């Protein structure tokens, strides 16, 4: 593991920063907040043109075949501009799940369309009463010949409103271990009996939805991979999602520290820049400590996906815990340093603060990840 970037990685990072700063301005991000889809097809096409949709998709399926560490560099930059839209859902969630669970034919079909920007996709996991593990997958199915009838509701599904494809975790077998009997249905949102409701959440940059299934009928060919074998692929996806989210949160934390520092240098009170006072200076220093520490763990975790798979699940939980805590605290500290303007709708800090809260509550909260780590060393005893 080397923390320095190759020249190709430097180029990727710099071009991403430039593109995102030019296109995802505060005005544009706010416009997307008001847009129920959260994105515009023209912009999506431009991003696809850059090759970002297929960054980690193997070349044989039309992608660039780069590493997760490379994708992480882009996610980091997206976090800096609190990028709205279904990129994360499509490129991290759905792509990783299809890569892991899909049959050859399914990979060829879906991954090529994702890479070329023709398919927006997401994954529906959680339900009412949010359980982070497999025991939370309760959405029921009734088999009728070759078809399944689905009944139940998924909650907190990111970007379902704009997705062409929703991969839904369904319990196809009961009376088995929680991790067994879960199947991944490839759901076209237009199917009869599927209803999508946009949830009025704080962070409208990442839309969350409720997806209801009112005896919607799907054929057994519309299952990703094998029937009943979906959970281990979800686990793999969740590990990567947590790492990807950590990189996004790192970018956000890095940006809010810049906002705080710039303001502390120019805001004069009592005749001095407020950054000269230790009450403010020490807040900024504490943020830098946590942002730099987050950089160490988030970049390491991204590297483990391809570089050290034995460490990846531990690294993911550590990254999610540490970086998630950093982002929320850094955004809150920056809001405090900004004072009155920080509390306004006009200033961008609330976009970051809300994204931080939403991110920490995705894919397992801090309590959940700490318990995962605890059970690891307990098993070692």
């Amino acid at each position, binding site marked *: 593991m080397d923390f320095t970037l190759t020249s190709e990685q430097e180029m990727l990072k710099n071009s991403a920063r430039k593109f995102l700063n030019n296109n995802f301005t505060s005005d544009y991000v706010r416009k997307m907040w008001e847009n129920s889809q959260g994105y515009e097809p023209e912009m999506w096409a431009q991003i696809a043109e850059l090759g970002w949709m297929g960054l980690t998709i193997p070349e044989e399926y039309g992608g660039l075949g780069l590493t997760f560490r490379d994708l992480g560099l882009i996610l980091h930059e997206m976090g800096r501009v609190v990028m709205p839209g279904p990129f994360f859902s499509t490129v991290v969630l759905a792509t990783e799940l299809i890569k892991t669970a899909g049959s050859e034919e399914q990979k060829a079909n879906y991954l090529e369309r994702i890479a070329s920007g023709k398919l927006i996709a997401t994954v529906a996991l959680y339900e009412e009463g949010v359980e982070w593990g497999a025991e939370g997958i309760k959405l029921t199915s009734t088999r009728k010949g070759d078809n399944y009838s689905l009944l139940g509701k998924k909650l907190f599904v990111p970007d379902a409103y704009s997705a062409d494809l929703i991969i839904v975790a369904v319990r196809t077998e009961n009376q088995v271990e929680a991790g067994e009997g879960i199947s991944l249905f490839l759901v076209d949102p237009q199917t009869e009996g599927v209803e999508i409701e946009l949830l009025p959440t704080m962070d409208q940059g990442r839309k969350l939805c409720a997806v209801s299934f009112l005896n919607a009928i799907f054929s057994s060919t519309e299952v990703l991979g094998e029937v009943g074998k979906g959970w281990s692929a979800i686990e793999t996806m969740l590990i990567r999602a947590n790492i990807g989210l950590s990189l996004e949160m790192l970018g956000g934390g890095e940006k809010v520290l810049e906002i705080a*520092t710039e303001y502390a240098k120019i805001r004069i009170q009592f005749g001095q820049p407020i950054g000269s006072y230790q009450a403010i200076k020490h807040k900024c220093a504490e943020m830098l400590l946590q942002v*730099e*520490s987050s950089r160490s763990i988030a970049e390491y975790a991204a590297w483990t996906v391809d570089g050290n798979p034995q*460490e990846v699940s531990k690294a993911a939980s550590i990254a999610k815990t540490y970086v998630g805590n950093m982002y929320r605290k850094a955004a809150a500290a920056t809001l405090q340093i900004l004072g009155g303007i920080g509390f306004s709708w006009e200033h961008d800090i609330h976009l970051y603060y809300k994204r931080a809260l939403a991110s920490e509550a995705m894919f397992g909260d801090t309590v959940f990840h700490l318990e995962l780590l605890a059970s690891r060393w*307990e098993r070692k005893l």
Partner: protein
Amino acid sequence: MNLTMNPDDQAYRAKFLNWLSENIPAEGTSAEAKISGDWCAQAEIFRKFQRKLFDAGYAGIHWSKEYGGQSGTLMQHIIVTEELSTNYPWKMFDGLSVGLVAPTLLSRGTEEQKKEFIPKILSGEHIWCQGFSEPNAGSDLANLSTSAVRIGERYVVNGQKVWTSIGHLADFCILVVRTDPTVGKHKGLSYLLVDMKSPGVTVRPIKQITGEAEYNEIFFDDVEVPFDRLVGKENEGWLIAITTLMFERIMNEISIVPKLQQTLDRLIDLTSNTTRYGQAMIKDPVYRQKIALLQVELEVMRLNQYRNLATLLKGEMPGPEGSIGKIFWSELNQRMQETAMEIMGPYSQLLKGSKYAEDNGKWAFDFLRARGNTIEGGTTEIQKNIIGERVLGLPKDTVRRN
């Protein structure tokens, strides 16, 4: 998690571990040794052991043979430091000499100073202490008033230093003194190498919070220091002192991470072996969460350290980022110690010598000693000023600007 090691480095680690298993001082293996006891006796054990390290080629590995080193790699030095930190149960007295004095001399000292002092540091002949803080110059270090007046070929030093760790055992001292009282406080300082056996040096141990005397106050009454014991130029001592402090922050971490790992492992054992409400405390969700969070922080600190070392391995000088590590480890150690105290309940207060004390009072001792971590080597508040001003570029406050 390990830095990616090449096969040569892995072989070197194995070879050193093998040597270590045969050469660790027998006294050092007793349970008693885990607790700080007789400092003079420990210093003697250290000197003998350091001599063995030196003779076997495990001292100053990355430094030139000219100065008693091995002309090896920094990675080899890191390996030896890590393994000693994990496996050598006594106190090492080379934190200052190998960690601070030698690197400072290598980057700023004269050829004669390097040849005279570095080999004796490596062979354990010289133990060093650090004469920086004074009664009126703590966080405001540049306010120090110990004076040195140049008379002919020597300086005559007068004044007092305080909080000088191992001053009572040291052979030499790195001493920051004021050589020009007429200029701004940072501008009139010089950096001297002082023989602690010089006439006029008086060392008085100070009993500290743990009950033992690790640090001292030192008085200088007309102490003569030869002119060739000046490091760098006269009145440029502040720059040298800063160099020293940055080395201290980065190099210390190499041995601190393994120590914190041992503390965390002991904490997990303690939590597993302590029962409350009829079950092992390791089953208590509150403590599972607390200890898992400590583990998260330790892993993050380990990675921070790898990043710092990667910078050093590329041959770059340590920068003000070292302050991040100093804040991180000192506060993390305090949190670990505090958690142990909570777990032990009333047993937490028992000291060495009580048959009821957990681990013969080591937890209690370390808990108290850890309070010093956020003070020694620059307080947390001073580290935050350094980060705020030198990394983030925030302005100094008006009082310190003048």
